[in-house]
């Protein structure tokens, strides 16, 4: 039972009870008066019993309507009193990591709820501050890492230019260079995502022919899949144009295709399709392979999460691919979802809103 219903009922009970009490007092006064009259005029007894019946009817009529009025009035009053709470609830429901800085408007009349709103705003404000500090920290950290990485990469390359190096020395330096390049990719990905979190990455919106991008990506995927004899198919490719960032969308498609090939099996299959619906474009990519277990599936978009720990060391990549894909999709106002089960097809579905 909601607070509003409970308060309305209580209100009606108290309202009716007080009315009944008043009624009872009035009734007893009338009876007393009637008896006093009765002692004076015996002949008027008949009329008196009539008056008693009238009184019961009046009490029933007025008492009944009083209860109804009490209920309705109680409902209205509590609704009025609780409206700010409902408003507050809706406002709080809308709060997410991305809009913590947004304050809930105060009523300004200094009541308990106004005070609650104030306290709540102060709390989200503190949370926002903490989030910002973490974001800034990550951004600074990835930024600060760039200079030493540049130096490390440059020094290693300079060392490799020395022709007197023995083969083992050269191998060691090359392996070191590979790791520096991997680290560079991680730092780049991290910088991008942190900036995206802080809303600092702007999309370059233009009309983009999605089908052309998908066909291009299909051609690239065939080449990427060839060494493992994976068959790539383009099932459907509707002609669709959307407003989007061409580079980011290409990055998204390539990212998903690259995953579909990496987490596949030799001789496996990748199927992609692009379909237009009423108000969105749907890109779907399926791949064979080991699949993803149910407990890992919800976490695949998490940063640095690896789908299959057994493959962890054989598959290269920075562990940020799907997080970046998810960011690109949501920045375009779309949705991305993934379906999979062990030894089943893994299906990634991207829905992007069409230009209005």
């Amino acid at each position, binding site marked *: 039972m909601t607070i509003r219903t409970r308060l309305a009922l209580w209100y009606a009970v108290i309202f009716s009870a007080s009315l009944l009490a008043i009624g009872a007092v009035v009734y007893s006064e009338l009876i007393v008066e009637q008896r006093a009259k009765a002692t004076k005029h015996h002949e008027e007894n008949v009329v008196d019993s009539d008056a008693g019946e009238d009184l019961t009817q009046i009490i029933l009529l007025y008492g009944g309507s009083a209860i109804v009025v009490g209920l309705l009035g109680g409902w209205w009053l509590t609704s009025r009193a609780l409206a700010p709470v409902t408003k507050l609830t809706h406002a709080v429901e809308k709060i997410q990591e991305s809009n913590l800085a947004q304050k809930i408007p105060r009523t300004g009349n200094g009541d308990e709820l106004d005070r609650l709103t104030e306290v709540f705003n102060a709390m989200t404000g503190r949370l926002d501050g903490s989030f910002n500090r973490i974001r800034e920290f990550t951004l600074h950290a990835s*930024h600060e890492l*760039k*200079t030493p*990485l*540049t*130096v*490390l*990469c*440059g*020094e290693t*390359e*300079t060392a*490799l*230019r020395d022709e007197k190096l023995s083969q083992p020395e050269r191998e060691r330096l*090359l392996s070191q*260079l*590979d790791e*520096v*390049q991997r680290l*560079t*990719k991680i*730092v*780049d*990905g991290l*910088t991008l995502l942190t*900036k995206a979190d802080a809303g600092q*990455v*702007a999309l*370059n919106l233009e009309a983009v022919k999605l089908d052309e991008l998908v066909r291009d990506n299909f*051609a*690239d995927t065939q*080449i*990427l899949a*060839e*060494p493992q004899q994976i068959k790539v198919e383009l099932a459907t490719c509707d002609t669709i144009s959307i407003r989007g960032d061409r*580079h980011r969308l*290409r*990055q998204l498609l*390539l*990212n998903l295709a*690259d995953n579909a090939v990496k987490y596949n099996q030799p001789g496996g299959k990748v199927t992609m399709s692009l379909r237009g619906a009423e108000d969105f474009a749907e890109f779907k990519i399926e791949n064979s392979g080991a699949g993803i277990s149910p407990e890992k599936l919800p976490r695949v978009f998490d940063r640095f999460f690896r789908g299959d720990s057994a493959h962890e060391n054989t598959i290269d*990549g*920075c562990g940020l*691919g799907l997080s970046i894909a998810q960011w690109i999709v949501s920045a375009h106002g779309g949705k991305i979802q993934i379906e999979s089960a062990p030894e089943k097809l893994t299906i990634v579905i991207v829905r992007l809103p069409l230009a209005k």
Partner: protein
Amino acid sequence: MRVLVVEDEKKTASFVRKALQAEGFAADVCHNGDDALAAAKATPFDVIVLDIMLPGRDGLGVLKQLRERKNSTPVLLLSARGEVNERVEGLNAGADDYLPKPFELSELVARVRALTRRNGENKSTILRVADLTLDTVAHYAQRGGKKIELTSREYRLLEFLMRSAGRLCGRMMILEKVWDYNFDPGTNLVDVYVRRLREKIDADFEIKLLHTVRGSGYVLKEQP
């Protein structure tokens, strides 16, 4: 060929200079914007490598000042921020190329070399490396008189490698010129394409033309 390197981080400046010198360039180094402007006024450089984040006057400021003075020396911008907008901003301000940090040294050297050739770029319609020829009008490639079938992407890759014949092409540069990607896609796309192209142009021939420089990129040339 004389290159001016404007970079406040001393170690970076030092190995960039060494690498350029090793490639046969004369390289001067400045550590701040004002010195760079003075140096550019005193000496005609063939290329200026300009870091955006400098103490005092920043790289973009230096670039704008240079262009205002009608100095049209090709400029390669370096930046640790690596934002798409910054790249556009830099190119609009008159830069000729942009390289985000951390960069690979070979990539930087390749870009500097490309900038020095920009004016005298090989504009002929028939490109030739040893017995491999590419007709850029008829889109026809052949080696030793035998026609080579290429997909459009492979064709663009081969054309780019042939136009830069003898020079090292970094992966980033290939992605930019052949795929028009201005981000690192984190895949081995370039390597796989190069492998395929190599099968088509080198597999049946004794002399290999397409060479891998591990950790750096690829080069198309007659001698290994």
